[in-house]
């Protein structure tokens, strides 16, 4: 119904699609709504992104897990930090990205935002799950418990359910655009949880300690631990981005194949129907 506003992602490439995807003044955001241009640009970017992720992690992980110093009171257990903290940052930063994609989807009806959001949420759920699991493994030897219902742990659990809920909701509808819209609304409602996760350790007293790095003032880590942490965080972020990008590319191609198959089936069925009436 609103296909006139944005070029349809399902439009088959070819000379017949060209006149339909030419708005009077194409906004910057819509440059990549053209699936062919998106696939070409990201096809060149993806190997570099993946290679950079492998390279940075190949430096960061051995540095963090073997060469960095132990903590004076936690000993070697502190090495969980180098997985736990990047996963927590990715679970939260990824969710902020999901909220931005949802705004792009609801306001500008950007078709690529829907697909990217759909492919982002399982990866974000994985990061949040790893954050919870490593945190639990860390909590048992240090705090003396696997889990407590303090504000930080509970709000991160809510974040995990929001990730899972988004992944499930966008796939629960027969019509993909209805699922995308429901998911976008859920993602924006869930974004209210992000400041709660971040500031839970400052607003309320919790078992979880306050932030060591993302805070006003100098980090609370010795530089021998801070630098490998930052390198690991960069490497995991690159890997996260490469994973989401690869999934989004696969989804674009999948949708294109389905559109082509649909068009071919229609041509075989009723050759007199014009391709312009094809629904998304």
């Amino acid at each position: 119904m609103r296909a006139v506003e944005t070029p349809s992602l399902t439009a088959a490439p070819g000379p017949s699609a060209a006149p339909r995807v030419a708005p009077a003044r194409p906004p910057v955001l819509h440059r990549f709504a053209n699936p062919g241009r998106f696939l070409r640009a990201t096809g060149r970017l993806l190997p570099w992104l993946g290679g950079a992720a492998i390279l940075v992690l190949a430096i960061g992980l051995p540095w963090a897990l073997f060469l960095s110093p132990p903590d004076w009171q936690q000993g070697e257990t502190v090495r969980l930090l180098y997985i736990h903290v990047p996963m927590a940052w990715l679970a939260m930063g990824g969710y902020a990205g999901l909220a931005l994609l949802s705004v792009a989807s609801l306001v500008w009806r950007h078709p690529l935002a829907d697909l990217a959001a759909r492919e982002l949420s399982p990866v974000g759920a994985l990061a949040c799950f790893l954050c919870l699991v490593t945190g639990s493994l860390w909590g048992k030897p240090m705090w003396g418990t696997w889990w407590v219902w303090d504000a930080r742990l509970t709000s991160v659990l809510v974040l995990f359910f929001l990730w899972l809920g988004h992944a499930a909701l966008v796939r629960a509808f027969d019509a993909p655009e209805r699922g995308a819209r429901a998911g976008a609304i859920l993602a924006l409602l869930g974004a209210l949880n992000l400041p709660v996760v971040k500031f839970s350790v400052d607003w309320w007293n919790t078992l979880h300690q306050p932030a060591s790095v993302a805070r006003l003032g100098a980090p609370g880590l010795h530089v021998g631990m801070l630098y490998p942490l930052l390198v690991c965080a960069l490497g995991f972020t690159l890997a996260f981005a490469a994973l989401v990008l690869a999934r989004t590319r696969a989804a674009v191609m999948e949708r294109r194949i389905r559109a082509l198959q649909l068009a071919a089936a229609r041509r075989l069925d009723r050759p007199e129907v014009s391709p312009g009436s094809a629904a998304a």
Partner: protein
Amino acid sequence: MTRKRRRLYLLLLCGLGLGSATALTLTAFQDNLVFFRSPSDIAREAPPPGRAFRLGGLVEAGSVTREQAPDGRPSARFRVTDGPTTLTVTYTGVLPDLFREGQGVVALGRLGPDGVFRASEVLARHDETYMPPEVADALRRSGHWNPSQGAAPPAGNWNTMAPTASRSGS
């Protein structure tokens, strides 16, 4: 264009409304969303007798005595402080590895009629400072930090602290 603008404003309005509603709710819950209460909180407003709650604070330096309970389990008696007020705690069971004098702890239990907190669970709470053993040793030797007195000095000062320590010779 106008339709997109309208959708954007609608979204911003919804976000503003929901955001302020959440902020108000969280502010209202500010006092109830506590994981533990400090000794001062309890001195100001004692919880009803027999009710279980969590007590949080630092283990006071020199207050820990470890014994053995009649059934052979380890037991400990220590004082938890938040500065102005302290509370005596007894606990039978294995304490977490991080438990020591000067460490933050959160204990779940009940306040007895004698004013002693009987804990059924003690959790250690560590602060946001991480440092290698050598740095901790150096801070201790230079007299800048006694772990049993509380948290370490901020990491940003570690490098600039050492010279002043050797000069003062304390």
